[in-house]
């Protein structure tokens, strides 16, 4: 860019734009922004001033600049300015280097994007240009699978009718293809360059804005004015798909594109500790002012009573009044500033840098963690924000998406029911279901999806036998859909709108019913090696109300309607003669649902010609009617979709991701409450909740699905009452104030250990069972008593809308916080964010939102921490997130290991940091009382400058980067260790106060012990020891040793590096000062350092070493004692865990038991609920002929989207594993009961979801 950035012209706000195609001069005159983008902040010239300006805008840096200015005034400067310049420059340079490298990366990516090439029409030919040279008004040619150069208005495309397909994953995260269309009038230009170059349309359209869904403009050409809509525009950031080429006119370029207009800065998140830190620093600053004020007052007195008389040896400065009191006052005021300078180390500049540095490295631990690397997709964990790590150790609420987050979002055809016969279950000779995966062998197919496994030979046999029903079943599957075929490497790949449809069509193909191609009016299939073509008469498309779709096809004169849809909708439309078969199928559906499968019913109807023609006419009328078209069309659909004959039902598996149940279970044990926010139905959500162990059968589960405000309110009240009853009944709690907000803590109940707080079973046999029956015997004992694992809450989106109102939201929150798990179903993205906000604002707890899709972005941005899963739904969530990885289960490691450690480390770091700076700085304060409050430094000024940067920084950085209480495995196996973070136990105001007091006491000892020991003593050679330089060096050396030993005591995790850094720091202190205080300096600089000879003189006296040892003992012994007594008498969870890790004995056993228990738990069904695709279908596009691909005729190379295939590969192995574990669950259950510890063991519930819903609240088994 040859513009000088700071001389940019201020632009007049645009109202609208008017451009002319192929008239570059006229367009250039308008001075619209070119297509070059620049996301970088600096260039070579502006870097220094701009970066410095940015840095000094930070309060801390500005403060140090202020200090520096003070130091430059010799009258008050108590320290050489170098003491501030050195650290300040260090800090500024470090930040500047980081900023510069970030900016270089941005420059690189900018230039990479700017130098992408695209073809434009120039004169009569196509010229390849770089993106940055594209101007508004240029006609560009886009190729298949290329990113769109800028925002362009389509002119013509390779497809019929000027259609083209785009993928908008980069823009909104949706991976499904969308259709755009050129204006009918212009699409005839096709790729005739000569015509295109003569194309001289004028386009008038709105000024650049950030609305992705709207475009308004007019195209005037050949005396016609044609309206332009969003459909006619391709946006930058999208990618051309399934379209060989497309021509378009650039309308917005570079910074004006909607993509760039939307890339607003993400909100800057700060952690809880950051906020606390800010307040603490303000407090410290206040403390500093108080200290300075004390010194000022004392100085005033001292100068007027002592200093005034001492003037014979030390006259006051000439600018000070000679009057005793006025002069003293003036002097004391100057001393105030001097003391600010020397005491400023209590708010050390290195604090911010150190914290940032530690967080950066902690983020690297996350980035580099191979255990969070998802190999199949090549997705490493990524800390996209480096400043939030410790908050990962304080999470109390997790808000999770379901699809793609808990589940894989991969659907496979799993079971089916055809005319009352169920297929998919394998039975042995005795008719029992075989579930041992070892005995199951998947059947080999010629062509199948990678995920697909089928075990049941009965279905194959039926197909081979030519069973008519089975044939109809699969024919329907191959005909009734809106899938688009694509040929790729000689194979047919399907492009479907929902994964469900893809699964069904693919399954049909696998069984030999291949959907080959479709045109506007026909569908070609290959049924059992026989090609057949059906005339496609109508597609009655899917929508969320209809929850079904139908096709009407004609073959050999027979007109048939095929329909598939949600069971409830199909059931209503069945012929009355189908009752019996429906009852049977219903049973199967229930069985499927219990297995957590998504189900659909299939039906058909034969139509006679006359009937159809009459209906078609009606439909035509409805389609052309001007008002209420949609309603009328739907009504017409209803008319024909009746008297259906049921063929059967399909069951699709929506697989849970690996390790999700275990992960959720452990997170729950870590005291984290998990709220699942999903778009699914209540039943589905409930089943998912069960299968991922979010909900268990021993939980009290309440469901809110009321549909108006009043009943929601009533329901909330009712649930609250039930909760109170339950609590009073189970626990020894009397809730007197019923109005008061419910809170487990008020009753002293630890949510993690309900069993400990339970009412003792009364031995006299009068104990009441929850259902009201008095138990007559007590032999049931503790084993038999009702299990209670807490409350669970399900709420639908509709009820949520009311519950989130101002009036009810606190009630909802109260119930929600009482629950271990909350599931919100059918929620919109906005509601997701609202729920997060509700908890965040009112609970003052740290929240984490995790999701993978564009619909999760709002909550990811809202929550304290947003986690994105790089899944199938594009990268939008990842881009908005603070942390990202490939699988939900890594969340456990992120929180329980990295988060916990980060919190522990940063807490210990801060604790220690304040301690060491108070210890260091307060010595100046004490010394003030001996030096006439003159702001004389005790230490060598050079030491003051380097103490924080060199002589105490490395060990504390090592502490903040490497320290850990227990190993990663232990952290994972002991989730309760996580709770201290939630309660801010490691760093809070109390701990801060303790460390400050510790620091102050330390400074006292470090100052006064050497003072007493040295002040009147002499060296063996007779010289006195108490000169200022020796004393200062002595205190400094003791300080370094004590402070670093204290650091060693704080450190739990000793590594070679830590040893090196710790002892190295101490050794370097001695070496450095030996050199600095030697004559070497004279040889180099031809002048002496003022402290020459001091190190030698001090270190050669026994007095010093005895004092050092004495001081260390006095300071460290109490710390030892405190640690010992705490370990002995009131060990914290962490202490226990550390001891256990050290003395493994019992722990090993417990650990093994825990692992066994984990294994048992994993032998559960890992499958989830069911639903229908939730999007509007492609029906209208297909029938209108707009979507018809030319692929069949042109026979061109097509790239299939890569992601789909890749994911298929991965999930194969996972699926196998899941399958195994599932199969084992039932067969091995008798064995399980032998294992004594059955507290965690739950019998899997085999009730249909429908039944479950009716029992509100559910009674436990």
């Amino acid at each position: 860019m040859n513009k000088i950035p700071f001389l940019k012209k201020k632009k007049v706000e645009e109202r609208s734009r008017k451009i002319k195609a192929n008239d570059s001069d006229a367009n250039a005159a308008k001075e619209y922004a070119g297509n070059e983008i620049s996301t970088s902040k600096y260039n070579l010239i502006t870097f220094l001033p701009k970066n410095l300006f940015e840095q000094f805008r930070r309060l801390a840096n500005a403060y140090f600049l202020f200090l520096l200015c003070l130091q430059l005034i010799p009258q008050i400067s108590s320290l050489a300015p170098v003491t501030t310049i050195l650290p300040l420059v260090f800090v500024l340079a470090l930040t500047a280097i980081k900023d510069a490298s970030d900016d270089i990366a941005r420059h690189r990516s900018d230039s990479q994007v700017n130098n992408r090439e695209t073809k434009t029409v120039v004169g009569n030919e196509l010229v390849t240009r770089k993106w940055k040279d594209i101007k508004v008004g240029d006609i560009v040619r886009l190729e298949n699978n290329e990113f769109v150069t800028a925002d362009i208005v389509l002119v013509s495309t390779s497809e019929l009718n000027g259609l083209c397909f785009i993928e908008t994953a980069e823009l909104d995260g949706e991976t499904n293809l969308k259709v755009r269309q050129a204006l009918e009038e212009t699409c005839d230009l096709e790729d005739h360059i000569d015509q295109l170059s003569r194309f001289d349309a004028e386009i008038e359209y709105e000024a650049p804005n950030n609305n992705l869904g709207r475009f308004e403009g007019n195209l005037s050409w050949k005396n016609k004015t044609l309206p332009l809509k969003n459909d006619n525009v391709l946006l930058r950031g999208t990618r051309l798909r399934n379209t060989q080429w497309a021509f378009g006119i650039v309308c917005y370029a570079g910074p004006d594109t909607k993509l760039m207009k939307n890339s607003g800065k993400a909100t800057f998140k700060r952690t809880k500790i950051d906020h606390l830190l800010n307040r603490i620093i303000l407090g410290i600053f206040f403390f500093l002012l108080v200290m300075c004020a004390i010194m000022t007052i004392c100085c005033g007195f001292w100068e007027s009573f002592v200093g005034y008389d001492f003037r014979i040896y030390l006259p006051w400065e000439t600018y000070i009044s000679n009057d005793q009191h006025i002069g003293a006052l003036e002097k004391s005021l100057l001393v105030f500033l001097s003391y600010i300078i020397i005491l400023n180390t209590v708010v050390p500049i290195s604090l911010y840098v150190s914290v940032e540095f530690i967080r950066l490295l902690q983020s690297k631990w996350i980035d580099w963690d191979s255990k969070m690397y998802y190999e199949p997709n090549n997705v490493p964990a990524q800390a996209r924000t480096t400043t939030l790590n410790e908050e990962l150790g304080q999470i109390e609420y997790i808000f999770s998406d379901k699809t793609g987050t808990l589940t894989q979002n991969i659907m496979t055809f799993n079971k089916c029911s055809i005319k009352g016969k169920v297929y998919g279950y394998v039975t042995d000779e005795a008719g029992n279901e075989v579930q041992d995966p070892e005995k199951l062998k998947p059947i080999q197919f010629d062509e199948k999806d990678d995920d697909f496994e089928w075990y049941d030979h009965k279905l194959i046999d039926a197909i081979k036998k030519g069973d008519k029903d089975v044939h109809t079943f699969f024919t329907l599957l191959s005909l009734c859909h809106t899938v688009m075929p694509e040929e790729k490497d000689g194979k047919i790949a399907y492009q479907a709108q929902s994964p469900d449809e893809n699964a069904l069509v693919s399954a049909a193909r696998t069984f030999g019913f291949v959907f080959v191609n479709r045109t506007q009016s026909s569908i070609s299939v290959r049924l059992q090696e026989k090609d057949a073509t059906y005339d496609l008469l109508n597609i009655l498309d899917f929508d969320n109300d209809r929850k079904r779709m139908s096709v009407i096809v004609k073959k050999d004169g027979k007109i048939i309607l095929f329909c598939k849809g949600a069971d409830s909708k199909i059931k209503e439309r069945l012929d009355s003669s189908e009752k019996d078969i429906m009852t049977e199928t219903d049973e199967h559906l229930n069985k499927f649902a219990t297995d957590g499968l998504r189900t659909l019913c299939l039906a058909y109807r034969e139509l006679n010609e006359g009937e159809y023609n009459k209906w078609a006419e009606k439909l035509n009328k409805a389609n052309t009617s001007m008002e209420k078209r949609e309603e009328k069309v739907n009504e017409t659909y209803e008319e024909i979709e009746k008297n259906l004959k049921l063929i059967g039902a399909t069951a699709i598996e929506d697989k849970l991701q690996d390790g999700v149940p275990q992960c959720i279970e452990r997170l729950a044990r870590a005291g984290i409450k998990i709220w699942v926010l999903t778009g699914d139905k209540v039943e589905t959500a409930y089943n998912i909740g069960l299968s991922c162990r979010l909900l268990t059968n021993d939980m009290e589960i309440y469901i809110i699905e009321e549909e108006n405000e009043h009943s929601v309110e009533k329901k909330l009240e009712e649930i609250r009452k039930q909760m109170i009853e339950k609590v009073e009944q189970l626990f020894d709690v009397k809730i007197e104030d019923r109005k008061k907000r419910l809170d487990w803590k008020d009753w002293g109940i630890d949510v993690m250990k309900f069993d400990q707080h339970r009412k003792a079973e009364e031995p006299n046999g009068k104990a009441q069972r929850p259902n009201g029956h008095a138990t007559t015997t007590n032999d049931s004992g503790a084993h038999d008593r009702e299990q209670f694992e807490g409350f669970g809450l399900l709420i639908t989106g509709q009820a949520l809308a009311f519950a989130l109102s101002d009036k009810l939201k606190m009630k909802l929150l109260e119930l929600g916080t009482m629950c271990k798990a909350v599931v919100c179903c059918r929620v919109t993205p906005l509601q997701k964010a609202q729920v997060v906000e509700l908890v965040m604002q009112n609970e003052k707890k740290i929240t984490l939102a995790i999701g993978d899709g564009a619909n999760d972005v709002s909550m990811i941005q809202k929550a304290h921490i947003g986690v994105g899963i790089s899944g199938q739904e594009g990268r939008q969530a990842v881009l908005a997130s603070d942390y990202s990885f490939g699988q939900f289960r890594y969340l456990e490691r992120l929180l329980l290991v990295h988060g916990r450690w980060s919190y522990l480390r940063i807490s210990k770091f801060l604790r220690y940091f304040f301690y060491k700076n108070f210890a260091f700085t307060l010595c100046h304060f004490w010394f003030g009382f001996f030096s006439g409050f003159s702001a004389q430094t005790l230490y060598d000024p050079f030491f003051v400058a380097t103490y924080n940067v060199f002589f105490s920084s490395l060990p504390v950085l090592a502490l903040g980067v490497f320290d850990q209480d227990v190993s990663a495995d232990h952290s994972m196996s002991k989730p309760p260790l996580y709770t201290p973070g939630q309660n801010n136990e490691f760093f809070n105001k109390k701990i801060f106060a303790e460390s400050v007091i510790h620091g102050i006491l330390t400074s006292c000892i470090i100052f006064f012990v050497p003072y007493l020991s040295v002040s009147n003593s002499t060296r063996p050679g007779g010289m006195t020891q108490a000169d200022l330089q020796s004393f200062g060096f002595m205190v400094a050396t003791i300080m370094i040793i004590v402070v670093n030993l204290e650091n060693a005591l704080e450190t739990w995790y000793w590594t070679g590096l830590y040893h090196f850094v710790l002892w190295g720091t101490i050794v370097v202190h001695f070496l450095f000062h030996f050199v600095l205080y030697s004559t070497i300096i004279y040889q180099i600089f031809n002048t002496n350092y003022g402290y020459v000879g001091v190190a030698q003189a001090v270190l050669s006296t026994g007095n010093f070493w005895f004092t050092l040892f004495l001081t260390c003992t006095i300071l460290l012994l109490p710390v030892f004692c405190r640690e010992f007594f705490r370990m002995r008498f009131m060990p914290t969870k962490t202490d226990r865990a550390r001891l256990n890790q050290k003395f493994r004995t019992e722990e090993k056993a417990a650990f093994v038991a825990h692992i066994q228990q984990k294994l048992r738990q994993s032998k559960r069904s890992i499958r989830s609920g069911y639903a229908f695709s939730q999007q509007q279908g492609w029906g209208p596009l297909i029938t209108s002929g707009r979507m018809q691909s030319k692929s069949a005729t042109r026979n061109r190379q097509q790239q299939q989207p890569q992601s789909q295939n890749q994911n298929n590969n991965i999930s194969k192995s996972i699926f196998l594993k899941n399958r195994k574990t599932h199969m084992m669950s039932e067969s091995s259950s008798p064995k399980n009961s032998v294992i004594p510890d059955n507290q965690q063991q739950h019998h899997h519930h085999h009730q249909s979801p429908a039944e479950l819903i009716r029992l509100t609240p559910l009674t436990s088994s």
Partner: protein
Amino acid sequence: KVYFYYGLVNYYQNHRRYVKSRDDNQLLGKTDAVSKDCQPFQKSVNGSDYTPCGAIANSKFNDSLTLVFNGSQTVPLLNTGIAWTTDKDVKFKNPNNASTYFQNNPPPPNWKYTAWDLDKNNSDNNGYKNEDFIVWMRTAAMPAFRKLYRRLNTNSSQTFQGGLPQGNYTLKVQYNYPVINFSGRKQFIISTTSWMGGKNPFLGWAYIVVGIVCMIAFVVFFILHKTWKL
């Protein structure tokens, strides 16, 4: 070995402006213009630098103390070997042509004679390299301090070969150095040293107390540790 000290109490050698008020380069024998740090004892009225400059030098202790044994014999004292060797060898050097230099430049206002008159008998102990001066220039850390004044010359006479014999000693003070007006006090201390230096009761007592505490802690820890069941 016997050492003689003078002590000053309520004397603020550690005051910031006092500590600062010197020019180490001048004391190294460099004859450039002195640093402004020496203010207000930087230059005399006629504009030439004080030699040496600064408040520390200007306020050099100048009482002369002599000790008389049994009313007649003056105790022989050495005025060398009382400063740090590094100070004497490295930090303080006289300029070239020291005698003319010191004559041409004024001494600090409080001084009655030039630096070259500090020890006329020993040119190695004269000017900036005068050890009394060097000792004074090493500023004390506390407002109550002592500085090594003289050491006993054990070689000059039989009487003092083994130190100071028992007897009556008279201290003769030539009083030049006023301390009354700022309530200061002067002390004269006679001391011997061991391998650890002079008498230091604080360290002794502190070690006894801390040692006892450590013993108690040891016993308690030991018992607790033995009875500790994990």
